[in-house]
């Protein structure tokens, strides 16, 4: 068990990602943030707050992808989480999906499917706090807080103060 990011590291990573998103999109006028619950939604809120200090806060929404998963039948039914469409929708916007950990890529595939049901964004980008490798699909992140090489048997635990006791990312040993 080891801590790979502490709260200062997370704050710095989010600040850098905010600047990268602004730079890549030449400002925030076309940008909409869409967090994937649970922790991706909180990260989206934090990014919007940081962006408000730099330029202004872009529209923020959340997208629950449970009903679009392809592995639903491999686990017992899970409760649905909240979907809140951002102000102004996603039509013609540069949508930045935000999640805590990028692993197999299946969550993002499901998110892309769900997005397709809602509308047609101009572009879709992906920001994650941690990329731990082991992709099963041809998906990559545009903005990465930290690349953490892991064993497939380990698990990565992201804690955020909004729902956990503290801000940190740790690797839990093989189970």
């Amino acid at each position, binding site marked *: 068990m080891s801590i790979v990011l502490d709260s200062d590291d997370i704050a710095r990573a989010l600040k850098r990602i905010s600047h990268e998103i602004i730079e890549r999109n030449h400002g925030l006028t076309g940008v909409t943030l869409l967090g994937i619950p649970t922790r991706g939604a909180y990260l989206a809120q934090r990014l919007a707050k940081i962006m408000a200090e730099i330029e202004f806060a872009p529209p923020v929404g959340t997208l629950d992808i449970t009903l679009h998963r392809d592995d*639903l039948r491999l686990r017992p039914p899970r409760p649905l989480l909240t*979907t809140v469409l951002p102000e102004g929708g996603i039509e013609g916007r540069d949508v930045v999906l935000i999640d805590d950990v990028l692993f197999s890529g299946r969550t993002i595939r499901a998110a892309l499917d769900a997005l397709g049901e809602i509308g047609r964004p101009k572009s879709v980008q992906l920001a994650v706090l941690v990329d731990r490798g082991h992709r099963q699909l041809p998906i990559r992140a545009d903005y990465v807080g930290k690349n953490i090489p892991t064993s497939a048997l380990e698990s990565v635990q992201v804690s955020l103060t909004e729902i956990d006791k503290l801000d940190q990312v740790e690797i839990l040993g093989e189970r």
Partner: protein
Amino acid sequence: MQSHLLSISDLSKEEAFQILDTAEELRKISDGPMKKLPTLRGRTVVNLFYEDSTRTRISFESAAKRLSADVINFSAKGSSVSKGESLKDTAQTLQAIGADAVIIRHGASGAAQRLADSGWISASVINAGDGTHEHPTQALLDAFTIRSHFPDFAADFTGLRVAIVGDILHSRVARSNVLLLAKMGASVTLVAPPTLVPVGAEKWPVKISYDLDSILPDIDVVMMLRVQQERMTNFFFPSAREYSRAFGLTNSRLALLQPKTIVMHPGPMNRGLEISAESADSTKSVVLEQVANGVLVRMAVLYTLLGGLPLNAGTERKS
């Protein structure tokens, strides 16, 4: 939870609230542009209806289709049942076709239980009304409708006062509602002529009254039941007019209700008998909301039963 929904007693309080929470999230999604979800793609849902139904059948059909399941509608009329085919043979036919869920409505109490326990089929069985026994999804959608009007009781119905009025004896809706509302914490009063109160109702978790006028001013929800003339093999009240005067929600009784009180009816309504046209069309009436909510709650039930790991496969896959 089991892989069937036969009775409200199959559900714990937590599971009941979880289904309502799921339906709530589905409402937010359905209100947006995502009308159709891919969740049950490739699964087959059979509507097996031995009794007539408008609302329940189209509600289940719509729910299954919004989750991308394939739906087969089967009604006894116009099928081999009219040639004398037994429930067992029909069930085995459905098994051979490869049904993942069977939604059954049947005139015999216990038909859904029989189908689930018989070993004839491996599909999930959902009871959509069996005789005078239960109609669990109706109770869930009623609870969902009540909750959306009384947000103070979102997590617990303790303190909420509900009157269920009318033909309790023949009502599977009443039985399921009594079980569910009591489980969720509400205090329920049954109001009916003594001839339409079932034997044993005194042991239910309810109060029983024969006087509607004394009950109406102090309740939050009044649920009117249909007088089920097709099940009445005996004389239960002297005349329709006398029933209406004593137990119908007439215009003058509508005026007794508090401003926040809502009027519910599972449908189809006998206008002029148990409910006056003015009451049925008043702003207190949530009858059409109940229908709309039915689709959401049934989506939640289908998702809960079919959306995850098939329960009989659970032990093999854990290893």
